[in-house]
């Protein structure tokens, strides 16, 4: 998934990654703050998770790849909007309660997340076809 690669990673050698540049840190932070605040305001992790999956699909599926948007929206916003630890905690509680329905719903959330990424990517692909750019698809 080269399109998910932040610039500092791409420019770094294989064994010694470069430290993040200030500009990259700024972009990640600018996305992370609204992402975390939205998750907190929603108070509904599954909704936040699925929304984040849809948006990361939109960004990672955009042609040509947009590394700066990936940093701010993908890594910053979506990364902070969505939570894996919250999902695992909900799963642990559902298992503890012996709730087969709860466990099933949480497993379904991961499947739905993958589908939301797919949906985002296909929407991004359609937008790209509607507004063709010079750069060729890899």
């Amino acid at each position, binding site marked *: *998934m080269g399109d*998910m690669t*932040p610039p*500092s*990673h791409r420019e*770094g*050698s*294989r*064994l*010694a*990654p470069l430290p*993040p540049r200030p500009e*990259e*840190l700024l972009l*990640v*932070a600018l*996305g*992370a*703050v609204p*992402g*975390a*605040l939205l*998750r*907190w*305001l*929603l*108070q509904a992790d599954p909704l936040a*998770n699925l929304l*984040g*999956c849809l*948006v*990361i*699909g939109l960004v*990672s599926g955009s042609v040509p790849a947009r590394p700066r948007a990936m*940093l701010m929206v*993908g*890594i*910053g916003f*979506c*990364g*902070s*909007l*969505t*939570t*894996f*630890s*919250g*999902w*695992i*905690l909900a*799963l*642990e509680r559902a*298992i503890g309660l012996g709730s087969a329905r709860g466990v099933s719903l949480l497993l379904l959330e*991961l499947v739905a*997340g*993958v589908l*939301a*990424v*797919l949906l985002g*990517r296909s929407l991004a692909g359609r937008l790209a076809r509607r507004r063709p750019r010079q750069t060729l698809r890899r």
Partner: protein
Amino acid sequence: MALAPLPSPEAALLVALGAVPGAWLRFWLVNQLEPRLPRRHWGTFAVNLAACFGLGLLIASGHHERGMAASALPLLIGTGFLGSLSTFSTLAAELEGCLRQGERRQALVLALGSLLGGLLALLAGRGLGGWGT
């Protein structure tokens, strides 16, 4: 989804103050780890497990609360820092990427590994945090 009464600006500030270092640590760790790992997505896997471990510690310390009106430490560390450190969207994107490239086995290993690893990390953090008390 019931939108709770408006949160206080102080609470929002705490969430934001935790979120920035959480996202930075995730970004930095994934960048550090990925070139050293055989498959790129194990960097995100490691960060997610670390966040589950941290959440276990927070629960064991008795400082885990959810909701808008949680107190300062859970807002800063739980909702802000650990919530931003871990990511569900990148995991889903990596699973989708594996499936798109026909690597079904890799997707299954990543999904099950994340699920079991996350549960174990959470329990380990809670167990370790419970020892001292």
